[in-house]
């Protein structure tokens, strides 16, 4: 399935991407699986998702946890804890 992924703030800078359109293998069906899939891209990706820093995820503009299911056409976003206000 095909999804859009957005990256923000510190995470955008560490992976050097702000957004991408990606075709996922059929076994990548959750946020955790997507993180593992992206970690295969290299050291900076692996470091990002190795659990040592907090990476929040949103699907279609709603915060989700790592067990959340991803569906075709979803907009998935990765970002650090928010610091507005």
């Amino acid at each position, binding site marked *: 399935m095909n999804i859009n992924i957005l990256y923000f703030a510190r995470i955008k800078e560490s992976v050097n991407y702000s957004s991408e359109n990606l075709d996922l293998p059929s076994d990548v069906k959750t946020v955790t699986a997507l993180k593992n899939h992206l970690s295969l891209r290299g050291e900076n990706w692996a470091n990002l998702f190795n659990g040592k820093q907090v990476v929040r995820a949103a699907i279609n*503009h709603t915060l989700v946890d790592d067990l959340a299911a991803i569906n075709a056409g979803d907009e998935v976003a990765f970002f650090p804890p928010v610091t507005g206000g």
Partner: protein
Amino acid sequence: MRLAEHANQDVANNASNIGALVSFVGQVRDMNDGDSINTLTLEHYPEMTEKALLGIESEAKNRWDIIGSLIIHRVGTLKPLDQIVLVAVTSAHRGEAFKACEFIMDYLKTSAPFWKKESTNQGERWVDAKLSDDAAKARWK
């Protein structure tokens, strides 16, 4: 400088059932963690910001008997003394407006997709989320 703004209802003080208006303004300080701040840049996730602010205001209206609310949050590059955020809440009696205004700020700090980057004489750095903000939010559970 762009604005992320949401008002669930006009917060103007022109409704004669309003007895209380509580407002919060956040502004950029010139020092943070011991370093002098030259600029503060706010990044956000626009589509999610809209949804998050609506959700926070809606939850505040569910919890307290408030009449109107307004949130304005700046994004882009700001400097010390610039205003970052305005939250204003009206109600018949003061207790509701105080609680709702502080609730909205606590949720804004921890749930709305904004990120701050400081430019100091030591270079640029992303601001870390504060445990004290998580604690402030947890009070409302």
